[in-house]
């Protein structure tokens, strides 16, 4: 036990002090932020750049009102030019498009004859506002022709939403399942990334001991399995440290953002209000809904979920990192690991797909249940199912227990297998590893 502690401590310190580890720990959040800022800036840039400017040549003079009222900032009305002149100039001035609305007998006919000229084809996102603008003018015109008052029309088309309650009479929130699935997906993804990053570190640390030839000295002092467990635990602790630092940085940044963009957040609500029109009722409904979602998220069984998250996270990680350790022991250099990587990553990716396809659709359906119990996919798939709750018709207790038992048994099995490969493999040098050879090592 004392030796195990020594090994864990050394592995932990060796990881933590590693320069690339330190760089990764502090650079990744920076890079992430820079990337995010870049994306935001690009969106902003796109919105304001002259490239997205559209000229509107409205010969019918019927649509001026809707286009000048438009919040779209990149529209310019040009009525003094003919179509040919405008087309010639558009090409020169690198304006993105020219909306031409011809003069006709009726608004309908004008709209019918309208064409959007552009250098390249417009995206749906770009063309939709123009369609909506023209459509709103048409609606207004049609209502007038039918003799219907605008207020009556709004009364007729008022939206409706069906309430969804559970059998106990509690109100269900629409879309809450999507939120839950998204959260589960995020945790599953986190576990997968954790396995790939830190499992790889375990592997590299094994290879390092092999290639520096210190391994024989070490195993003359400790048992290979002690060394392997020490490596896995030490590296895991280093990984958790890194994660904690990331979470800490994220928290600080979030708070800073919140303070710094306090006004911006108000702005968001204002804009939300704007898109919903100045209809106070709709806004009120929206904010009530938002509050409902927040309430629902806060009402998750966080404690029990956190507990099981931890369990599955740790089990899943242990299963895979002992496999990584075995691979590290079987090879001489990192370049030889490629052939073994795929079989490891495959079930992880498979689990993610299962999660996204079947857990999102039917979180407690047969497929989701099966793969949340099957040990190699269980940690990820179960993590995705857990936010839906534990209980009857949800993640049932027997499923949880069976999954935990199977995962744990698998972990012990893999550990035993890996230890076998490990204890033979670490003393093998200059041999090309093959599955056949590894099977022989296990048998010996």
């Amino acid at each position, binding site marked *: 036990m004392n030796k195990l502690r020594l090994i864990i401590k050394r592995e932990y310190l060796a990881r933590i002090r590693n320069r690339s580890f330190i760089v990764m720990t502090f650079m990744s959040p920076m890079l992430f932020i820079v990337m995010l800022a870049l994306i935001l800036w690009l969106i902003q840039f796109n919105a304001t750049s002259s490239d997205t400017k559209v000229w509107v040549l409205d010969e019918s003079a019927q649509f001026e009102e809707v286009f000048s009222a438009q919040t779209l900032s990149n529209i310019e009305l040009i009525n003094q030019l003919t179509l040919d002149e405008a087309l010639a100039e558009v090409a020169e001035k690198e304006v993105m498009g020219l909306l031409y609305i011809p003069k006709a007998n009726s608004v309908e006919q004008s709209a019918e004859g309208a064409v959007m000229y552009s250098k390249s084809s417009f995206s749906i996102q770009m063309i939709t506002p123009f369609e909506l603008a023209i459509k709103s003018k048409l609606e207004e015109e049609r209502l007038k022709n039918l003799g219907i008052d605008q207020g009556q029309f709004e009364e007729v088309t008022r939206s409706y939403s069906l309430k969804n309650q559970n059998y106990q009479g509690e109100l269900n929130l629409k879309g809450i399942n999507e939120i839950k699935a998204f959260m589960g997906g995020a945790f599953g993804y986190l576990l997968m990334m954790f396995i790939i990053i830190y499992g790889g570190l375990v592997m590299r640390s094994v290879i390092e001991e092999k290639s*520096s*030839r*210190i391994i*024989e*000295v070490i*195993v*003359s*002092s400790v048992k290979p399995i002690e060394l392997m467990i020490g490596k896995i635990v030490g590296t895991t602790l280093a990984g958790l440290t890194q994660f904690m630092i990331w979470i800490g940085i994220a928290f600080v940044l979030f708070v800073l953002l919140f303070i710094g963009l306090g006004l911006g957040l108000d702005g968001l609500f204002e804009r939300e209000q704007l898109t919903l029109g100045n209809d106070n009722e709709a806004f009120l409904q929206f904010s009530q809904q938002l509050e409902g979602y927040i309430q629902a998220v806060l009402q998750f069984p966080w404690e029990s979920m956190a507990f099981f998250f931890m369990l599955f996270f740790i089990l899943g990680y242990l299963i895979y990192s002992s496999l990584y350790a075995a691979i590290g022991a079987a090879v001489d250099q990192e370049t030889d690991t490629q052939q073994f990587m795929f079989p490891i990553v495959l079930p992880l990716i498979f689990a993610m797909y299962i999660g996204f396809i079947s857990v999102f659709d039917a979180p407690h359906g047969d497929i989701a249940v099966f793969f949340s119990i099957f040990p190699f996919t269980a940690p990820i798939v179960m993590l995705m199912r857990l936010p839906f709750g534990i209980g009857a018709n949800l993640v049932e207790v027997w499923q949880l227990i069976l999954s935990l038992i199977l995962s744990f048994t698998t972990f012990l099995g893999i550990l035993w297998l890996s230890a076998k490969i490990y204890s033979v493999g670490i003393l093998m*040098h200059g041999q090309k590893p093959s599955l056949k050879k590894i099977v022989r090592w296990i048998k010996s």
Partner: protein
Amino acid sequence: MKSALIQIDNLTKTYQGFKALDDFSVQIPQASIYGLLGPNGAGKTTLIRILNQIIYADNGTVLFNGHPLNAEDVSQIGYLPEERGLYRNMKIGEQLVYLATLKGMSVEQAKAQLNFWFEKFQIQSWIDKKVSGLSKGMAQKVQFISTVLHRPKLLILDEPFSGFDPVNAEVIKNEIIELKNNGTTVILSTHRMESVQELCDRICLIHQSKKILEGEVHDLQQQAKDRVYHIRLQINENRPALEEFISSCEAIFDVNFTGENKVDLKLNYADKDADAILKDLLSTSSLLHLEDQIPSVQELFVRNIKKHGN
């Protein structure tokens, strides 16, 4: 023979049908240097790894200090493998303390020993360096210290002199002798026969997973010598009579007359008349040179391996 620190009885180890050690028995006396010799692939590494409990024998027993070898004993053993190395990116001092604590030493003891050895070798400035900043010879020195730092009763050294220049090899050799004089038992596995000759009290020659020769170096050499005197004489008088006498003696062979009345010859002193023959020879000649040729360890090695077939 002194009492045995290690007693190995009927050790057998098989790898996938290949016998690496076959019914191998040997005793290694306390406070001695024991040479483990044999061609590549003979089974030396297998034996060493069994002693270090890195691998386990299929059959047979190993007694350490009178009791069956167990996991606790690793703290009493220092091992310098042939394939050796250190953590490249760990400070040397930290690394040696880590290795010593893995052998069961306390951190304080390990640090005290570290200072002792680094002072002895005059390398205190290396303590905070990393191995990646050392030359091969320097790293080997550090590696040697790492092997003896926890004051083991048994030291297993596999090619300890490789990588050292002659001066440093001498330093290490003297350290090994000093350790032995202080009661440490040393198992020395090497292909450098002059080191074996110089250092070892006893040797064991392993060939094709079997022990083919074992014993005190001096005894083995005495047993193996061909019992022939190499003699050079100055002929003082009556050369024809001497020539005739020599050719009549069956115990004398390889005769070679050289200029100025000198003769080289070999006398088989296993012959019952050897003493009388020698006396006769010296009655008309004077002795320039007489040598009882003792085979070197190198010769013992080659001769025995040849005898048992490659």
